[in-house]
């Protein structure tokens, strides 16, 4: 194997692992975090309302 071959292979590897990581991150992990965050926000408000009561119109 020449040095050039090795360089090409690692380059290919980097490219595919970068794409895989990018896609997993934006399509799976971030949406997961977003939904979990909104969910816990909702849960927090629910708990708040259980203690302090729901919103009121003036």
């Amino acid at each position, binding site marked *: 194997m020449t040095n050039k071959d090795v360089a090409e292979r690692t380059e290919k590897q980097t490219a595919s*692992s970068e794409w895989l990581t*990018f896609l997993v991150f934006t399509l799976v992990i*971030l949406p997961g975090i977003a939904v979990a965050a909104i969910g816990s926000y909702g849960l927090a408000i629910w708990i708040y*309302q259980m203690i302090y009561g*729901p919103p009121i119109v003036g």
Partner: protein
Amino acid sequence: MITKLKNLALSFWRVMSKPATKISLGVLAFGGFLTGIVFWGGFNTAMEMTNTEQFCIGCHEMRDNVYVELQDTIHYTNRTGVRATCPDCHVPHNWSHKVARKMQASKEVFGWVFGTINTKEKFEAKRLELAQHEWARFAANNSLECRSCHNYDSMDWEKMSPAAKFYMQPASERNVGCIECHKGIAHHLPINDSGVNPILAKVEQGATSQTLEEGKQYFVVKPIAIYEDEDLTKQAGTLSYAAPVKVIEKKDDKVKLQLKGWRKDKGFGRVYHSDFGKNIRVAVMEKDPAQNPDLISVGLSQNDPATGLDWSEVTVEFWAKEGAFIPDVATLWNAAGEIYSSNCSTCHAQPDPAHFDANSWPAQFNGMVGFTSMDPSTQALVLTYLQLHSSDYAEGTH
């Protein structure tokens, strides 16, 4: 397995923590932007999807009961063609509160999985409880959801029916929530076909397991027969709701009780009242026992200047069965108060019990009770509740 996961996470982190070498910044930024849009769109679509009537009635629990009933009401078909759907009335419109309500719906999913209301019978049995949750919600937010469509400020009183104007114009000045008077606007009200009010049934249930102790005071949770003898053969009379009794003696599940009350000297003296000069019933005696000095000791007579009648204090001892007494009368009053407010607030805000005195309540109450679906024995309880919380007894007023 664990090391594999660890390696995966490590290599993920290695790529994540370094600047990208093969994907251009433009592609990354665009990709992030695009998925962001798609995500937000998808998220809101999901929120909206779960906020449609179609979604709600996807569960037969919702479809077969409340939805069918809604179809007969003004919010389903009307001359203006404006529909109120389930989420319009039941789901908060503000985004944060909507998300909170969606989380709350985990309770519904739970109920669905475990079939808490999956038959008509179960639904009707649980309906009062569910309705009370909704009433509490509307009461706490002053009927916020109704007001996203209706508004007092936009109501033209002159165009309303006289009854509507008569009740609602004063209510609008006090900004009273719609639900105070418009319960059952979209679905049938909870009914109780067992004959016993479900709220009362719970209190009575609690009393059956209460064991009585000698020397202590208790309150009766429902009208019961009382007897002259410990074998319970000769009926002496009937105790009324919340009559206070003291346990003198106990034999198995039978108890000898003592009751103090007041009776009018005029007539047979069969009706005992809780206080001097107050027409609040605690017991009604049979004719002969009412005159039996072995059972009853009569105190000195006093004249009530308000009516000119003479009243005497009476102490009566009798036998009864265990299982209808509670040590804390507040339990019974809470139930009575709940029944009162759910029955007497449909047309007008319920009057404060302390608005009248004990002797005025019976006439006020009896003139109105025909409008409600209270059965006679519940009526007796609510009247006693009102009298004992009337201006004669309320703190601060007198």
